[in-house]
């Protein structure tokens, strides 16, 4: 059999474009990380290895306050978004036709492509209209709203591919729907739920535009702080903070993918007896 072109393995051109592409993607991040260890304050002169910028970042109260606010907003908004997003995914995947379904699905999916500037502006007008004092809670509510869609997408994809027969079997055996959901469906979609939470959390950690619109005095998030310093130019202290954020995200993704791998291996073992039958 002649092997089809797509399976013939990568050509020299393919390898070159992969190398250049990954180089383009990773080079700026790598440079940022390396330069955060530069002893010199000058961003273009290498003054030897040093962790002084990390020490000074940790002593910078403004940065640390902002980090703490951001973390709390992230946990609250990601958790809220996950609960609502999972419910929305169930509504879209399992509840057949209901009144306003089209409106519902377009409301769920629109924030994915909506420019952040518009999301921020509209939420701010809401908070102003109802006289809600802007600060920690307004940012958290705003983040929960736009990250909810991402959770729904992640969970919906898993719900659609998940074998419905299992849940139906549980119901046929007299299991109430909520229990069938908790004991059969939820464990099966758990990886997607965790992924959705993590996505919502990182999006909240990352957001500058929506937070700038909806925040008030006393609730400056880390991206807002970084942004106001970045406008003044590159600073080694910000490089250090960015490196820490990148490391945290990379560690999170790595742990999650390892856990996922472990889970799928366990699933493979668990379903083996049926494979032969």
């Amino acid at each position: 059999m002649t092997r089809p072109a797509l399976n013939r393995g990568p050509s020299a051109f393919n390898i070159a474009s992969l190398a250049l592409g990954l180089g383009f993607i990773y080079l700026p991040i790598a440079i940022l990380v390396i330069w955060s260890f530069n002893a010199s304050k000058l961003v273009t002169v290498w003054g030897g290895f040093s962790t002084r910028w990390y020490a000074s970042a940790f002593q910078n109260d403004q940065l640390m306050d902002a980090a703490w606010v951001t973390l709390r907003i992230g946990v609250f908004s990601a958790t809220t978004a996950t609960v609502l997003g999972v419910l929305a995914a169930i509504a879209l995947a399992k509840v057949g036709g209901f009144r306003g379904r089209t409106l519902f699905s377009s409301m769920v999916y629109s924030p994915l492509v909506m420019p952040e500037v518009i999301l921020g502006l509209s939420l701010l007008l809401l908070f102003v209209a109802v006289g809600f004092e802007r600060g920690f809670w307004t940012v958290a509510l705003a983040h929960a709203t736009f990250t909810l869609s991402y959770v729904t997408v992640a969970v919906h994809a898993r719900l659609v591919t998940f074998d419905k027969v299992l849940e139906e079997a549980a119901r046929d055996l007299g299991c109430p729907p909520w229990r069938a959901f908790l004991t059969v469906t939820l464990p099966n979609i758990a990886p997607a739920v965790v992924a959705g939470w993590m996505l919502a959390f990182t999006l909240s950690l990352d957001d500058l535009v929506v937070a700038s619109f909806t925040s008030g005095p006393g609730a400056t998030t880390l991206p807002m702080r970084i942004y106001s310093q970045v406008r003044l130019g590159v600073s080694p202290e910000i490089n250090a903070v960015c490196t820490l954020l990148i490391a945290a995200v990379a560690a999170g993704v790595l742990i999650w993918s390892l856990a996922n791998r472990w889970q799928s291996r366990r699933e493979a073992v668990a379903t083996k007896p049926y494979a032969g039958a």
Partner: protein
Amino acid sequence: MKALGKAGSKRIGWPPLAVAAPFLWLAVFFAFPFLLVLKLSFSHPALAMPPYAPKMDWSHGLQGIGDFLKALSGVNYRRLTQDDLYFASYLSSLRFAAIGTAISLLIGYPIAYAMARCGPQARRLLLMAVILPFWTSFLIRVYAWIGILKPEGLLNAGLHALGLPGIDILNTDGAVYVGLVYAYLPFMMLPLYAALERLDPTLLEAAADLGASPTKAFWSVTVPLSLPGVAAGCLLCFIPMVGEFVIPDLLGGPDTLMIGKTIWTEFFSDRDWPSASAVAIILLVTLVVPILLYQRQQARALEAQR
């Protein structure tokens, strides 16, 4: 609870709650705020904080609503047409997004194609490698380019080391393109890769058997079959690029015009909320067509999966 489980029909169970909770949340925090933006865009121009005239008077029932509608004014929109700045920043946003999307496609296609040609193990690793930066902060990724592109930055240091003259690219439109392509490349590559990976290899085999050269097979089989991925990737890049704020603000110059930046300036520097709302509404109207196209494309893709 038990009685409810038995009595409730098998299909319905507890899903009404599943619909109601997110529905209400999105109605309050997503749909209703849009109406507020719409209303404000028709208000009388005023600086700084609300309340803005006209004010809806609920106590007079329909009479109040009628008065409210009569008092609305299109003056903010009229001002937008009178000031060339807005029109210019619209056109310039669309141009940035179109060219940025095209460059992303040109760069993303060969990479996604190469990924699809690798073995399954390598594919998984490469996919992870492409997605990973997507998880790290957007702001940080844009910021990283400032250190590279600035006059005394690494790009010029490299050029000088090679004996070439340096270029002054930071705070120009060129730097905005670099930032746009860099930040949105994963959005282009993932749908492309998904389409290319699904491609049935026997089709290429058939093309080869019928005497097509690899180049011909690529253009007459691979490219047409990857078009849904191309469409999804382009829309996924184009739509957010039009409203982009961070990239033109950090990498662009003072004369870089983009609509997201204009809204931000109207809002934060000029404190002209009604004008900012009017600009936002026009931006939204501009994006409605690509957004609908994207949703239809997604629905079709979902159908095909089943």
